[in-house]
């Protein structure tokens, strides 16, 4: 049995199984709810049930008082749903987030480009009204035979193109889904997906200059975001640092160079980490975080940073940004997790969304 939870004040809607805790469902859906002990003792995860019914589970009578139970409070780490719910949680409202309902779609493959030896661009045509999404959102692709674990891909095209979305799919070593997409998928095929998902989006209302840091197929979201910003006549300063291994793996270079030529407030800095020394490459060398440190003189305070791509790259960038005195409240990211990321190091409670 699956129930739906609406989370106030953000309006996010997530699914929760009967018997699954609200906290677990939220975290799995990428929504951070405050929590600490995880088993009903500390009360950090308290939320108010505005509509619907829950079972309190193992909530300690000291962490969740009788008066609080009467007021409709519950501990998200122990409470399980008995109906659809609306809860109020201590989460930040995001004035810049657009809430688009998640829907199921069928896309028709209209074009496949080989962008690099490892990355293909897949264009999916969507009939009728197309898809409403915010730049930075991703979709869950249902690959034939692997429907029970959908694969996530960020949309690389801007939201203005509702009937044709672009995905950039990197081939993962030993990855079944991406291997199939690279080897089996053909023009004209239909493929099912759902979306849009995610909490990675541009803080439109923030006045600060923006830094985009991306690596590999993590170019997808920044591409969508930057294209949309300039469609709307962006005037804030934007710096895009993009990392690839070598020139062969660098893609959409012309697109961003043209954009930079057109817009004096846009700086595009490709950086290569293992380009042969004698290749004639005159651009930056090293990793994304190193290029960022150099370009900004190690000082990032006063910016908003958006990061997208492989988790180790993002991890290194976070450290560089913090050392340059830009903190959690000013950084946003989309980690391209794969199944292998499950074995990652344990998370400390120091950060909420990192």
């Amino acid at each position, binding site marked *: 049995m699956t129930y739906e939870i609406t989370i*106030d*004040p953000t309006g996010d809607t997530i699914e929760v199984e009967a018997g699954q805790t609200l906290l677990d469902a939220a975290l799995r859906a990428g929504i951070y709810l405050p929590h*600490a*002990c995880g088993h009903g*003792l*500390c*009360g*950090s995860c308290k939320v108010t049930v505005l509509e619907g019914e829950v079972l309190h589970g193992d909530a*300690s*009578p*000291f*962490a969740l*008082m*009788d*008066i*609080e139970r009467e007021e409709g409070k519950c501990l998200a780490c122990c409470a399980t749903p008995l109906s659809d719910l609306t809860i*109020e*949680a*201590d*989460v*930040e*409202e995001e004035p810049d987030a657009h809430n688009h309902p998640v829907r199921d779609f069928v896309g028709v493959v209209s074009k496949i480009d080989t962008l690099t030896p490892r990355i293909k661009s897949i264009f999916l045509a969507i009939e009728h009204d197309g898809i409403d999404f915010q730049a930075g959102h991703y979709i869950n692709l249902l690959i034939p035979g692997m429907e029970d674990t959908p694969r996530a891909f960020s949309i690389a095209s801007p939201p203005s193109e509702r009937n044709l979305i672009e995905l950039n799919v990197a081939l993962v070593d030993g990855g079944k889904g991406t291997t199939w997409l690279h080897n089996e998928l053909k023009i004209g095929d239909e493929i099912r997906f759902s979306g849009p998902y995610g909490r990675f989006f541009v803080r439109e209302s923030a006045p600060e200059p923006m830094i985009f840091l991306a690596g590999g197929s993590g170019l997808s979201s920044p591409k969508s975001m930057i294209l949309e910003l300039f469609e709307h006549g962006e005037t804030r300063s934007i710096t895009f640092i993009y990392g690839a291994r070598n020139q062969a793996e660098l893609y959409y270079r012309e697109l961003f160079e043209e954009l930079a030529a057109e817009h004096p407030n846009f700086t595009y800095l490709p950086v290569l980490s293992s380009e042969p020394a004698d290749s004639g490459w005159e651009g930056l060398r090293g990793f994304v975080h190193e290029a960022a440190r150099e370009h900004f003189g190690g000082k990032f305070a006063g910016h908003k940073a958006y990061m997208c791509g492989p988790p180790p790259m993002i991890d290194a960038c*976070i*450290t560089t940004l*913090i*050392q340059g*005195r830009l*903190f959690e409240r000013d950084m946003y990211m989309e980690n391209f997790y794969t199944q292998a990321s499950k074995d990652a*190091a*344990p*998370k*400390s*409670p*120091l*950060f909420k969304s*990192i």
Partner: protein
Amino acid sequence: MAKKLNMRKRYELLTRGLGWEPTYQSKEKVFSNESYEGIKITDWSKWEDPFRLTIDAYWKYQAEKDKKLYAVMDSFAQNNAHLNLADATYVNALKLFIQGVTPLEYQAHRGFARLARQFSGEGAQIACQMQSLDELRHTQTQIHTISHYNKHFNGMHDPFHMHDRVWYLSVPKSYFDDAKSAGPFEFITSVSFAFEYLLTNLLFVPFMSGAAFNGDMATVTFGFSAQSDESRHMTLGLELIKFLLEQHEDNIPIVQGWIDKHFWRAYRVLALVSAMQDYMLPESPMSWKEAWEIYFVENAGALFNDLARYGLRMPKYHEQATAEAEHLSHQVWGTLYNYAHAASMHFWLPDEKKMDWLSEKYPNTFDKYYRPRYEMWAQMAKEGKRFQNGGLPQLCQVCQVPMLFTEVSKDDPMQISYRSSEFNGEKFHTCSDGCKDIFDHEPEKYVHAWLPVHQIFQGNCGGAAIPDILNWYHFKPEDGGDYAGSADETRWKAMHGETTGAASSDTESAEEKAAA
């Protein structure tokens, strides 16, 4: 309809604006403690409330917690539930708690009250004010929980007086004195972060699981009631560190120094807990070493990986503390056994079953170094020559623990570790590199340490003979020594109908004690 505010904004509206701009005094004068430590706060508005609790909600919640706790305490007392303990030796853990920990709760109460007054940020003021009240509540509820035992067992009659005077209690006391006599930011780094965030589980878990095993529901309930506050205290510790690091880069080395210092100070205080955990609990759920691995090595490791992004590293000498985990409890318990005649609780030698458990938990050290010691002391006791140390131990000038730690990290675990420093032509002794560093950083402070042994020799502790000193501590002759043959044991047996010729019933013994 106006859009509903989110919880953070609602809370800000309820709490901000409490800090008005002073007009006839300068802000620096009103908050005179805020700058002298060198900490730079550029913008208090960046403070993120670690929890959002208003004072009226706070009172409501705490009142209900107390109502529940006191109901359990009452029924515990009415049912004489102390009779159901697995063993009366367990009560010695409670003695250590009421003598060593409860007065610290009171010290924390005072310290946070000062912070609530001295921080100029309203968010921090309110958090500290609530914590101050929490700590006072902890003091009171601990006293009330344990007072039931005081009716039936010795050693718990005057914990606050003892805390100020007794040699082994100067260890926890001096830690808090050190923090309280520092500036407000050092105090909160010490108590909220180094102690409550990094190490609190090491203190609470053994006491509470010991209580649960022994069916001591009053103490267990107290534990639950305190834990719901403690999570607030821990998030405060974490928020504070993050706030200081983000406010100004000049804060980073200062904070690192405090973390180094107070980690080591707090760790030394926990030496007493390690002995309690491994030796006093009739059935210990986990060893000190296991607890250290889980609650410090793993948890702190993940945290410091993230703090490293700010340029902070693990507390200095943490590797040494981890290496010492193999030895700590045995060395401390051995020392306590040597001085049992000068304590207000009982110590004893581990029996065969306990020693087998210790061998299993400490395969690298127990059989090799410590079992032979206990076997020898057991043999001596059997021959009527119970080993006790007649002299007074040398104390570390900083942690005030007797010099009992050894050169574990120099691979010489049977060599006592001594360090010393010169200051103003005088020599001062410390127990470890950790304590020596702390001394050398602020010698002016530590030369003032009130060291119980020195005070005895200077004639400030009621006299020169042990009975005079114990009297000055408010110890009664029957409070200390071995558990076997103690008044506690006699009474415990009598409670269970094992006649020993002493008090014949529990009620009688309580009256007897009350009359005494």
